[in-house]
């Protein structure tokens, strides 16, 4: 058989219909921006106060029952993680510019995004925003696929690379302590209150108050930017907030803009599968093509 011009046009039209439907659906289902829950808790880290004592690193291990990580220290003498890893939920990093004129500590931990990419990427729903907006992890739902690692813009979730049945590891804001009315391990021990725990709204107000009080001390994302609170809107907002005396880009914080990280991907995905319309439509078109071809073959058979 051969496809004649007429049928080709027909076929093309049907295909175009599907394509148009698929492309307009996302727009119809445009995903609403998420707000922090009313009772959202958070943490505020102020680099101008941190003295790099790492008490929080030790307290974090104790609060979460994690063993010290000595794998990077010669002779295994020190608890010395080079970054967050499968046993380290919290680490103090040091930024030093090459001239040595500017330096700052940086507390790396989960940002507890208001609209987290890891939650969107998690197949089984192990990572979810649960109590108080904290992004928590339920290990019984984790298959260890590491999609969350690929999704997180802050490079936070870490994997137990040397375990036979590995799990992920990341800060859960000590939710097991918070629900009992205690503070997270790190904020409880910080000797200078460089990291404080509280309601996100209160912390945001406090951060802005600090910036308003000493606008010259605090910085923005890049050199010369107006001082701001990192996490107020970045990536749709985070529940862990940073104020800093060095530009945030130097601290390794990504430039995310205001758009939630998973917005585009989820809008497309959710759009395509909205009400399962697109797959059904696709199969309908394929069915129609089969029917048409069958009819055409039948007619041809009669004709010959």
């Amino acid at each position: 058989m051969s496809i004649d011009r007429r049928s080709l046009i027909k076929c093309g039209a049907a295909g175009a219909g599907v394509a148009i439907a698929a492309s307009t659906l996302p727009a119809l289902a445009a995903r609403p921006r998420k707000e922090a829950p009313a009772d959202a808790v958070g943490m505020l880290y102020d680099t101008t106060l941190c003295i790099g004592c790492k008490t929080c690193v030790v307290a974090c291990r104790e609060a979460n029952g994690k063993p010290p990580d000595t794998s990077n220290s010669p002779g295994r003498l020190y608890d010395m993680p080079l970054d967050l890893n499968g046993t380290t939920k919290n680490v103090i990093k040091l930024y030093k510019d090459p001239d040595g004129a500017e330096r700052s500590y940086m507390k790396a931990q989960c940002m507890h995004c208001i609209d987290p990419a890891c939650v969107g990427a998690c197949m089984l729903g192990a990572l979810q925003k649960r109590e108080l907006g904290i992004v928590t992890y339920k290990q019984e739902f984790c298959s260890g696929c590491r999609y969350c690692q690929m999704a997180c813009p802050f490079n936070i979730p870490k994997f137990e690379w040397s375990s036979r049945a590995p799990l992920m590891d990341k800060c859960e804001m000590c939710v097991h302590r918070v629900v009992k009315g205690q503070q997270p391990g790190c904020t409880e021990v910080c000797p200078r209150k460089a990291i404080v725990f509280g309601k996100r709204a209160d912390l945001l107000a406090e951060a802005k108050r600090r910036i308003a009080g000493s606008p010259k001390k605090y910085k923005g994302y890049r050199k010369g930017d107006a001082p701001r609170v990192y996490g107020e809107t970045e990536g749709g907002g985070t529940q862990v907030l940073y104020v800093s005396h060095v530009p945030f880009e130097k601290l390794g914080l990504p430039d995310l803009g205001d758009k939630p990280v998973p917005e585009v991907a989820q809008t497309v995905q959710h759009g395509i599968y909205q009400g399962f319309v697109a797959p059904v439509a696709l199969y309908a078109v394929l069915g129609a093509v089969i029917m048409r071809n069958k009819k055409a073959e039948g007619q041809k058979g009669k004709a010959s």
Partner: protein
Amino acid sequence: MSAVHEAEPVGGPIVTRGFRAVSLVLAIGVVFMIYRFMAGLGASTGLSDGYPWGIWIAFDVVTGTALACGGYAVAILVYILNKGQYHPLVRPAILTSALGYSLAGLAITIDVGRGWLLYRVPLYANHWNGNLWSFWYF
């Protein structure tokens, strides 16, 4: 014209040089698979938090999936678009697809940390998750 192509045996020995070569690759793979369940993924694959997914993901997506989806492509060509002259390709294409997808699925159970929990995917899935659909696709 006929859309039916009679199957006929290829004949010849099963254990050829190519078969032996591929078996060797398989044996090496089995050794590493056992090692992975003893020492963990980091030691057996060289993956790290810096590179959580290895080249095999890229290779699998670009090559393995492309090869395996030949089954779909040929099936659409022959059964939907009614191109009967390509029917001889259907059997090898479907076989390649079946093997390709099954092996990719099996490989994933070893590559993820806790493959034995993957059965929960259809039960407790995060329903709006795109990756879930990529799982179905597999």
